[in-house]
């Protein structure tokens, strides 16, 4: 099945489904929110409640973000090479590229 056909079948079937939300959890103060999964909920309030029930049953987080899945804009995997490969030959962007005399010490 091609992607567009899949999407179409999916959109049809989802007409009566609660929308899909992506869940991001901050494990503890000082850390980033991290994507941890998705869930269906009728609205944002319910999505927050369910995110708590589904993804933080064991104190996995202190803060939750939710965002409608259809609102996420993502890069296309087919563009992976075009987008990310050019960085491969830019080794001078890394500190290890530079060999300094040992006397300099930690820099």
């Amino acid at each position: 099945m091609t992607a567009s056909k899949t999407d179409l079948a999916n959109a049809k079937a989802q007409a009566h489904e609660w929308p899909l939300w992506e869940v991001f959890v901050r494990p503890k103060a000082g850390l980033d929110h991290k994507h941890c999964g998705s869930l269906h909920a009728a609205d944002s309030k319910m999505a927050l409640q369910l995110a708590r029930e589904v993804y933080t049953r064991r104190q996995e987080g202190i803060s939750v973000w939710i965002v409608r899945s259809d609102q996420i804009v993502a890069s296309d995997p087919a563009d992976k090479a075009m987008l990310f490969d050019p960085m491969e030959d830019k080794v001078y962007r890394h500190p290890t590229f530079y060999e300094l005399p040992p006397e300099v010490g930690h820099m």
Partner: protein
Amino acid sequence: MYTQAMDTAPKEERAAIRNADEVVAEQAFERALDNEGFIEAKDWMSDHYRKTLVRQISQHAHSEIVGMLPEGNWITRAPTLKRKAILLAKVQDEAGHGLYLYAAGETLGTSRDQMLEALHTGKAKYSSIFNYPTLTWADVGVIGWLVDGAAIMNQIPLCRCSYAPYARAMVRVCREESFHQRQGYDALLTMMHKGTDAQRAMVQDATNRWWWPSLMMFGPPDDQSPNTAQSMRWGIKRLTNDELRQKFVNATVEQARILGVTLPDPDLKWNEARNGYDFGAIDWTEFWQVVNGDGPCNKERLAERVDAWNDGEWVREAALAHARKQAARAAEGRKAA
């Protein structure tokens, strides 16, 4: 809780004509599989891979959801408040596992409703183990010990499976699963070491009834699993059914001894040469009977799921209607402002 390898996938059909882009994408896909890499949701994948994963993941999700029923049977009758809280937490975990897995399945382009429809119409399978009844409180402990124990054996290798959303869901599931097995074994230890003779007999009886169905959880023997090689190549299976089953038996014998119960198999004995336990023949007729709908509780379990879904319909619709009304009001408010 866990999935069951049943190898009912149709043989791979290849599209005869493909364009050049697709050939390149397919090569990248095959290379990722060869190198034990990951396939993400939006990456190119073959139809057969996609279909097999939808089948396996949804079947796994259904097992988690149906798996709540046998144990849910005992929530209101747990012997103490402590055991009740534990059992509630465990059953809630199973619901969570079902949800992680449905979400992983949805990334493959199948909707939640489509998967549920397949379960409710009997098109999709779930693990045969949940079609057995939970007759006593000891059954709850034995399910934790043996059924979740078998599930862990099955699921740990899947944390490294090639389909990344499935692998990530399995990492989460496995992290929570260990509590399930330990709480079951702990409940049984309490009955065996601090209980009455009647309670000890209850544990033995439950062990007798769940032992063989637990061994069947690993699926048919290797010589009757023609698609194992394919699944291994795709990394959605890491060890064969018989290898996992053997691992489980080897681990369980000592646990049974410490508990003080006998495993109901006169042929069970250590084999030095194989460095493992030999065990008796499994009744595969019973297995296929249960898988194909004729187990002790198949009809009851499915009916309960279908009823729950139908009874919840007005709630799902009301929530959606409420959300739409709120959104419309908010939009009006913005216009007015």
